């Protein structure tokens, strides 16, 4: 570890904290339906969308209607992605002549992009056409992100409203999020990325003759426009197979820094939106502090592990840390930082190959996802995931002092706690369950690229990533088989919707409650005690659930590595 490395990390944190307030202010205005400086341009477009959709923007929805609308929106989204992938061979914008994608792979990919996971069992440049990248994938990058943010806003309304029957209008929230937040940011961002060297062209792959006279086919495409939303919307699905490690997806140290910022920007700002909407910004800062504590701890471990390198390679006289699967322009620190950010959020873009990380360096991304990606988290998803843990922590605190727990003026009762537990428990059921199935099936075991405990970690990582809707991978695992395409799709589906529906039920039930003023017996939820309590609950629940699986994978591998054992 170096001083300049830590300065880069702290600079990153400072920028995220500085952006939270202005972005939070802007987003609060957008979702309150107020005018913004973009209204003169965007308002006519917005009205036109409501007109053709038959949406009355002043009519709000009950939480159940809101959820049904969201689910119907996803059915249509699924059909578009699946259809475009199956038909790409006969559709335009296909200069590389890609043929139809297989049924199971198309199914997996459609679920993957719909759920904001962007797990990729295909290699972008070798499998799909430009049309699929744009119409199939870029569009869903926008809409799955907008959906996540809309749901978080609905949950916040549940906390902030009193004696209300409605939580907002899904169509309005999703449209306004797309038009006023995501699209303007992406337009500027795309141009910055092209300036840094990311291609944006519809031309065919380039045939080059190298200095030594060999032929090199260089894949290009409309890359920048997709990378912008892939990062900002915490989607993470790469245009190319190597994702943000590919020099065309992340060419410079500056593009890398901006991409890391864009992963956290909106998620961190949503904590400020929460504070503003419940009437006290300090409530938002307290949540961001919980996230910050867990984040810095993760960065420290991964950076230390990667800078120390692998004992096996160090024994050959190498120094300078673990550079296998990393790019020179990013080095150890920017690769470690990126890995922790992308798994703390539900992004899943990678600028280094996590499969080649040291055992402990790769364990932190795994833990980040297993905790439910609540450290900033996916846009929207991170906030509602964190609020579920807050409900639980408040409940535990209430038990300790023997009072009815309350949070931002709302009593937390049996219904909320049950729903929060349902959402928190269904996740380990999926990843531990499917991992257990996969490691006893010979055809699933055959997909592992590494032997020994590392192979087990590859499988555990895959199901964790899918269930947590992350999408990063220990990429050695051959995921494009019938078994993995289907089981990973089921993990992504359950991980997304069995979290969303309980969260929405909580939103509806909270909105109906009266708001009670804080009294002498109310636990203050803006101070250090509260932050410590939530961090503790997260680590205890996470630790108890996952420690056995981690012991079989990365922990035993770390012990083997320090002993110099190879498999």
């Amino acid at each position, binding site marked *: 570890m170096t001083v300049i490395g830590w300065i880069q990390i702290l600079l990153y944190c400072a920028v995220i904290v500085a952006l939270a307030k202005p972005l939070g202010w802007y987003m609060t205005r957008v979702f309150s339906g107020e005018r913004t400086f973009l209204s003169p341009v965007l308002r006519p477009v917005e009205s036109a969308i409501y007109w053709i959709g038959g949406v009355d923007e002043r009519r709000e929805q009950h939480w159940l209607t809101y959820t049904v609308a969201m689910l119907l929106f996803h059915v249509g989204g699924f059909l578009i992605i699946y259809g475009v992938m199956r038909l790409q061979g006969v559709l335009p914008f296909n200069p590389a002549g890609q043929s139809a994608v297989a049924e199971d792979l198309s199914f997996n990919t459609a679920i993957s992009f719909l759920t904001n996971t962007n797990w990729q069992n295909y290699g972008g440049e070798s499998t799909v056409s430009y049309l699929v990248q744009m119409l199939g994938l870029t569009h869903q990058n926008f809409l799955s992100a907008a959906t996540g943010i809309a749901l978080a806003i609905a949950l916040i309304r549940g906390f902030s409203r009193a004696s209300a029957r409605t939580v907002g209008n899904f169509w309005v929230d999703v449209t306004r999020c797309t038009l006023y937040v995501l699209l303007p940011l992406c337009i500027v961002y795309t141009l910055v990325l092209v300036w840094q060297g990311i291609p944006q062209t519809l031309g065919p792959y380039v045939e080059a003759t190298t200095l030594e006279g060999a032929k*090199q086919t260089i894949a290009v495409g409309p890359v920048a*426009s997709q990378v912008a939303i892939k990062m900002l919307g915490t989607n993470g699905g790469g245009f190319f197979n190597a994702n943000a490690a590919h020099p065309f997806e992340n060419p410079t140290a500056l593009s890398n820094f901006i991409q890391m910022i864009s992963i956290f920007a909106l998620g961190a700002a949503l904590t400020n939106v929460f504070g503003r909407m419940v009437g006290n910004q300090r409530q938002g800062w307290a949540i961001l502090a919980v996230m910050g504590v867990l984040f810095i701890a993760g960065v420290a471990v991964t950076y230390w592990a990667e800078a120390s390198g692998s004992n096996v390679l160090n024994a050959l006289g190498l120094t300078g840390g673990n550079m296998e699967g990393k790019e020179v322009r990013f080095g150890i620190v920017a690769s470690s930082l990126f890995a922790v950010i992308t798994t703390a959020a539900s992004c899943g873009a990678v600028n280094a190959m996590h499969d080649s990380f040291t055992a402990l360096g790769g364990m932190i991304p795994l833990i980040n996802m297993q905790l439910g990606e609540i450290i900033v988290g996916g846009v929207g998803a991170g906030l509602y995931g964190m609020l579920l843990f807050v409900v639980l922590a408040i409940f535990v605190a209430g038990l300790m002092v023997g009072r009815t727990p309350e949070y931002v003026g709302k009593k937390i009762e049996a219904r909320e706690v049950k729903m929060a537990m349902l959402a928190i428990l269904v996740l380990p059921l999926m990843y531990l369950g499917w991992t257990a199935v996969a490691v006893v099936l010979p055809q699933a075991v055959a997909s592992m690229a590494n032997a020994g405990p590392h192979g087990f970690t590859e499988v555990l990582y895959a199901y964790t990533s899918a269930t947590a809707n992350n999408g990063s991978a220990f990429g050695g695992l051959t995921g494009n088989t019938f078994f993995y395409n289907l089981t990973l799709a089921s993990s992504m589906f359950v991980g997304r919707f069995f979290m969303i529906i309980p969260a929405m039920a909580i939103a509806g039930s909270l909105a109906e409650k009266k708001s009670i003023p804080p009294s002498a017996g109310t636990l203050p939820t803006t101070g250090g005690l509260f932050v410590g309590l939530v961090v503790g609950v997260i680590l205890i629940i996470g630790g108890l659930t996952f420690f056995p699986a981690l012991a079989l994978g990365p922990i035993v591998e770390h012990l083997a590595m320090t002993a110099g054992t190879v498999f």
Partner: protein
Amino acid sequence: MLKEIRPAIFVLLALTLITGLLYPLAMTVVAGAVFPAQAEGSLITRNGQVIGSALIGQEFKDDKYFHGRPSATTAADPNDSTKTVPAPYNAANSSGSNLGPTSKALADRVKEDVDKLKAENPAQAVPVDLVTTSASGLDPDISPEAALFQVPRVAKARSLPEDRVRALVAKATDGRLIGLLGEPRVNVLALNLALDAATATK
């Protein structure tokens, strides 16, 4: 609930058209006008022929060129399309090795490369990036140490004084952005082009 079906179709279609077609196509037009070179892939031409991209690494095996990092990219086996064969710096199929820290295959490969490099230049410690594969398999850069390590071999193959080659390396070395972000690095293709130019005007 049935009332939600109409917006589920039409709001979706409208937003899909905007974000899935209008946005990427408009950005393609604007980017092509404002940053034409980058939008096309930062291509480098010599004597009217495309010789590669400034951002994409290419394979160098000849002693007279600086070599890039090992690359783990593959291509479909021409004899059996269900299998793949190694194809370093295949820019149509980026990928890393994905070998973990306790992989015997990785340890063996690195040991072999370390031994080879030690024989080539016993005076210097082997730089780690010269024996590890990059994440994309297309890393255009090596560390300044990795470039300096190769100076004796390149100078000998080109019959140039080592100091001359070392000066070219120094010139091709990029520092951290504002002294802070990223890592010092040398673009291998740019260095080799400079080397060719220097040799031609010797």
